């Protein structure tokens, strides 16, 4: 799925990384616990989270993720946006709750497993 499709599905506002909207991602994960993302995630390109602090961006960067979606109308700080820009990560925010946002992405074919192109 292209990152721009995620933006459409979640009716999300872009915060940075517009130049990567055509980038393909193959799976996603959702968590507010960064330790869990670091422990269990493998090759997921998208992180859906309600947590706001710079460690979200560093975690995404360590895991080579392409995109972070902030849900529940939460907006990242300028510091976080700067950091994401430096790391080449797309940031967007959506008014949806995490459950709803993940439901939309899953239904549109973006699965939780790595290499999700096969279902």
């Amino acid at each position, binding site marked *: 799925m292209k990152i721009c499709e995620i933006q459409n599905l979640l009716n999300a506002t872009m915060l940075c990384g517009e130049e990567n909207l055509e980038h393909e991602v193959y799976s996603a994960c959702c968590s*507010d*616990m*960064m*330790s*869990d993302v*670091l*422990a269990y995630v493998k090759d997921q390109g998208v992180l859906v989270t309600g*947590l706001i*602090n*710079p*460690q*979200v961006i*560093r*975690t995404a*960067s*360590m*895991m*080579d993720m392409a995109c972070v979606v902030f849900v529940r109308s939460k907006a990242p700080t300028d*510091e976080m946006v700067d950091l994401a820009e430096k*790391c080449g990560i797309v940031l967007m925010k959506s008014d949806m709750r995490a459950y709803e946002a993940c439901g939309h992405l899953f239904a549109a074919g973006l699965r939780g497993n790595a290499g999700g192109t096969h279902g």
Partner: protein
Amino acid sequence: MGEPLKFHFEVDGENFSSAGEASVMVKKKLRQLGFSPEIMRRVSIAMYEGEINMVIHADGGTADVTVSDTEIEIVLKDKGPGIADVERAMQEGYSTACDNIRALGFGAGMGLPNMKKYSDYLHIDSEVGVGTTVTMRINLN
């Protein structure tokens, strides 16, 4: 490569926001040196968890990374409270972090298990009231 490359970082214990900066720098250096994404990821995640631990449990410390032909070594040293029972601290889910740390997305008790998972060698040298030194090595090829 010849002479091992050495990198030294001071990790500020006062500032949760900046925790992880050293790990981000190391990842960048490894990318410049041409290491595989797999090696970069393992080194940077292991170091990042260790760096976070020094900030949330030990008021900061130092990080030293040595890149040689055969391995990458990460040594994290702090003068924090130390770990009374290292074996217990290594268990998944064991954490002494309080709720305000959890609200920041850490303190799930997965840090040390993660560090073990992503490294080939992990040794913790800790004395209560003196400090903790964590040594990790990742084998190359």
